[in-house]
């Protein structure tokens, strides 16, 4: 099921809420979390029975491994081996089912192995695998939340209850398919709080607000930009001549489509979780208002940034720095080892995380080089002296101007159907095909883009708008950019409800189309 599906919004969600709060009232925390777990599996089954079996298998394996590493003594060598075997399971299933490694390596000769992997990529596998892997790492490093969450396991019944709690945490449907990738340290304290399980009208009001805003962003804005995007990127793929103006409109339209698609999803995820009294970590915080690529990654898909930094970039950077310092390497090779290589690998993985395509490879390379370069520039004496002298407003404006074009081009590459198609689009954007045949009527897309980019740059984001109700767990501390006059606060009331109704009605008008969220493909 997808969040914008009326069946989900008007049938599944009310039933799940009713079951959750009724069971919570009569049977308590464990039973309520079991309801969430069952509801989440029911939510997932329409994605395919095989995918659902794979999800449950991942839950069982990770749960058993987590129990072992939690209750085995530090001195036992088997503890580390079991932990590594658990993580190997996660990595291998991800590579096998997402990247079709068997068919890549062996081709059709791998027979049944290829057939099994040949099914559609299981929905959400990249997200729940990362969440499960992070949980295992927490269990291995003896994060106190893990032992507390698993509880005392004296009987089979208590093990079953712990499994349901674990299942609810990893497969919680608001975050199962597209994240945010949540840490147990964020989920566990909430489920132990006295507020949890209590039906609070504010939670419902805040939740519905987020759902309405998110749905409007996705169904009305992002999906209405999609046809323009498809035309231009399709034309670029076949090497057609494109009028520069239309090439730019296509690239900008994708930038806005991806933004509103993912932002809309993220809002809906926060809202859905909030209706069950739970807060998710924030995943999206006005990324296009960033002043550079470093700032951007603290605002775009923040929970992926932090999980990859934790498990990949930091260990690589620590190993490189240790090697460089112990061997007293000269500054240039030391920097390559401690910054550039770890950064390039980090972004290559972020790129490939979206799928096994060359366009994602090139996107990862572009962002890796850019991030490392920006890090060097910001650390340089020249930049510091400029920053000390320049007016913050002018510097911020210039930084954003420098940031925009590489971002636009890298996202265009990200969307392209092939690397050649991507470079062809670039050539048309900066080309001279002024007599090319017009591919679409420009009036509507230009109007849509004007509205979309005005919202992006001049409106507060939904978390800022709702900050009075602490709608999300802060992943990174980010400054609120934008005009102070626009930083109004939302309160539940009739006027606000009427605004939201307009958003919902507009969304319902378009909802019959039901294109999937872009991030569902990753």
């Amino acid at each position, binding site marked *: 099921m997808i969040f914008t599906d009326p069946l989900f919004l008007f049938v599944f969600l009310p039933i799940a809420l009713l079951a959750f709060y009724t069971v919570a009232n009569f049977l308590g925390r464990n039973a309520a979390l079991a309801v969430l777990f069952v509801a989440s599996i029911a939510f997932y089954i329409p994605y395919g029975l095989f995918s659902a079996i794979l999800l449950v298998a991942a839950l069982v394996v990770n749960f058993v491994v987590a129990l072992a590493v939690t209750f085995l003594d530090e001195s036992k060598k088997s503890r580390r081996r079991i932990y590594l075997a658990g993580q190997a399971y996660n990595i291998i299933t991800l590579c096998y089912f997402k990247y079709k490694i068997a068919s890549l390596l062996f081709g059709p000769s791998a027979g049944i192995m290829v057939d099994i992997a040949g099914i559609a990529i299981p929905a959400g596998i990249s997200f729940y695998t990362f969440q499960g892997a992070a949980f295992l790492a927490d269990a291995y490093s003896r994060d106190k939340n893990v032992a507390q969450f698993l509880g005392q396991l004296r009987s089979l019944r208590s093990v079953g209850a712990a499994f349901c709690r674990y299942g609810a945490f990893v497969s919680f449907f608001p975050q199962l398919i597209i994240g945010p990738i949540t840490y147990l340290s964020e989920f566990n304290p909430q489920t132990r709080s006295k507020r949890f399980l209590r039906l609070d009208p504010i939670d419902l009001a805040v939740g519905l607000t987020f759902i309405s805003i998110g749905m409007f962003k996705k169904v009305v804005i992002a999906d209405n930009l999609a046809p323009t995007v498809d035309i231009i990127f399709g034309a670029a793929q076949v090497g057609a001549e494109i009028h520069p103006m239309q090439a730019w409109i296509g690239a900008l339209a994708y930038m806005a489509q991806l933004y509103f698609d993912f932002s809309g999803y993220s809002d809906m995820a926060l809202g859905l979780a909030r209706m069950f009294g739970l807060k998710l970590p924030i995943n999206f915080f006005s990324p296009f208002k960033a002043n550079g690529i470093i700032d951007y990654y603290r605002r775009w898909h923040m929970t992926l940034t932090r999980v990859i930094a934790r498990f990949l970039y930091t260990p690589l950077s620590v190993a490189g720095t240790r090697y460089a*310092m112990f061997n007293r390497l000269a500054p240039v090779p030391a920097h390559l080892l*401690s910054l550039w290589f770890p950064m390039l690998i980090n972004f290559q993985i972020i790129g490939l995380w979206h799928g096994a395509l060359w366009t994602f490879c090139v996107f990862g390379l572009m962002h890796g080089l850019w991030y490392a370069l920006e890090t060097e520039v910001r650390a340089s004496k020249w930049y510091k002296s400029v920053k000390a002298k320049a007016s913050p407003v002018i510097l911020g404006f210039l930084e954003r101007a420098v940031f925009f074009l590489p971002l636009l081009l890298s996202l265009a590459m990200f969307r392209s159907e092939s690397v050649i198609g991507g470079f062809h689009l670039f050539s048309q954007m900066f080309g001279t095909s002024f007599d090319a045949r017009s591919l679409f009527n420009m009036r509507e897309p230009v109007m849509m883009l004007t509205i979309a980019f005005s919202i992006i740059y001049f409106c507060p984001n939904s978390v800022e708008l709702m900050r009075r109700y602490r709608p999300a767990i802060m992943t990174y501390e980010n400054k609120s950019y934008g005009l102070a006059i626009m930083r109004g606060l939302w309160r539940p009331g009739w006027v606000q409800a009427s605004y939201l109704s307009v958003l919902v009605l507009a969304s319902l008008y378009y909802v019959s189309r039901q294109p999937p969220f872009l991030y569902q493909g990753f």
Partner: protein
Amino acid sequence: MSDYQAILDQVAEIIRDIFDEYEGPVTMETTANDVAQWDSLSHVRLMVMIEMELGVHFSTSEMQSFKNLGDLVRASAKQKA
């Protein structure tokens, strides 16, 4: 306590060396937010320098879990004990 002080003094020296623009106090409560130059990159350098100078070893998850210098000093003292 005096163990902690001796370690903190050593750490302070390293901090003054790496973050040469920082002139504020270095205490058990000091955090990365207090020092403008202290970003994720320099954090790794700081940790490795402390490992070298103090003869201790931190895992990467430990390096990321220290909330302030106090946590770091206590973890170092535990290893040296």
